[in-house]
């Protein structure tokens, strides 16, 4: 009987020591969490990706402007839709054989390669960038895959 009491006490002490260690460890984790949030490398990376998305949609828009200046018309393959990020508005990757359900801009960009969103690399036939026109002479290009709830959209009047 006395032996089992001693064993219980030893077990209890071990549990207490284990809990103490856990508490100290979690305090260090909280401090580490604070330090991590001050730097937040995840956000830094997202910001870099978002800025590259901005550059990409600007590049696509420049190609659109060039086409409109040359032909005087908005490319006929661009769908009429005020909401840019809609199904059927996604731009097809350059060199893809099957562009069904996507917007094929081969006529607009010629031989140059269209930029692709980092999240769409090696995934599907879409670039991750969407295009539409509002029926009033403006082309809208957007990047709905932008991170951290940032809205990346560019609207430009063509005439």
């Amino acid at each position, binding site marked *: 009987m006395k032996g089992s009491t001693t064993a219980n006490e030893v077990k209890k002490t071990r549990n207490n020591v284990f*809990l103490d260690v856990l508490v100290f460890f979690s305090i260090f984790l909280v401090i580490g969490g604070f330090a991590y*949030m001050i730097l937040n490398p*995840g956000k830094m990376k997202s910001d870099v990706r978002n800025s590259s998305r901005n550059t990409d949609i600007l590049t696509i828009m420049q190609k659109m402007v060039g086409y409109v200046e040359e032909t005087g018309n908005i490319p006929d393959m661009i769908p009429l839709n005020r909401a840019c990020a809609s199904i059927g508005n996604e731009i097809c990757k350059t060199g893809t054989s099957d562009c069904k359900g996507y917007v094929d801009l081969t006529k607009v960009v010629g031989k140059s390669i269209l930029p692709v969103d980092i999240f769409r690399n090696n995934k599907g036939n879409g670039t991750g960038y969407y295009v539409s026109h509002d029926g009033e002479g403006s082309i809208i290009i957007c990047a709905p895959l932008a991170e951290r709830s940032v809205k990346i959209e560019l609207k430009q009047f063509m005439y």
Partner: protein
Amino acid sequence: MKNRLPREHVDIQFLSLCISLLAFLGLAYWAGDIVWIKDFQPFITLISGIFALFIGVLALLRYYTKKMSLNYFFIGVGFLGVGLLDIFQVVLDLGGMSNLFSGAVSQVYPVTSVLSKTFLAVIMFVSWLVSRKDEVNGKGKKKKEAFLMSLVIGSFVLFIGVFVYLMISGIVVDGMVVIIVGLISLMFLILALLGYLLSKNWLYDDFNYWLIFLISFLILSQIFYLPFFNLEYSNMMNLSIWARFFAYIGLLIGFLNSIYVMFQKEMETQKELAKKNRELDQTKAKVEEAYLMLREEKWSLARSKGSVDKILKGVMKK
């Protein structure tokens, strides 16, 4: 003599506090990609204000039930003030309740909201000071109560005055002023946390742990508000409000827990009383039984004495 809480219980409490803080930091890390969180900012502020009012009422109720600790009185009056300030802030920011879910807050960095935060920080610090003094002496409570009441009312009037002045005159206060005031609030909160931790009352009373929980989340809220983390401004404002919301929930749980403990104690007292009554009844019954037996023996003795007398009389006659 205060009963010390089991060591395991205390360890688990602080472990859960650390896990909650870590979980909140995790939420902050992922919050950038959560779209709906922005729409809830005014709503959560409003709910926090209502919770603060609840806490205030509960604390005052607790104080007036026993009138033991002025700490509760101070927390009660302080939280009532903070709740009113929070609700006032939401109504002013939104320009009416109809915009509650539209998320259209007038400013990204509302300067006036710093007042309720500072008020709460000062309240927490002073509540610790009061609890510290409570332990030293228990005399002159009425004087102390009057003094504290006037102090709270005075500071509340001061905050309201500044608040109304800012709103009426439309003064645009520099971001720098907000950061300085925010830092002062943070300082008060950290001092209060240290005070409560060093007083070691959390070893004896669960409520003190919940106070530490509250202050920890308020510190987190203040850090998000200032802002120290690498996050978007709108996200930090949101998370600051959410941290405050969790802080209030923590204290509310603390109060509910203390009510539960009080009921449990009351039940134990009732059980003890019933047990004592039962024992008393049993003793009474035994005494009665003994009395009856004694009486019977007395009677039988008397009867036997009567028969002896008869025999003696017979012998004498002979």
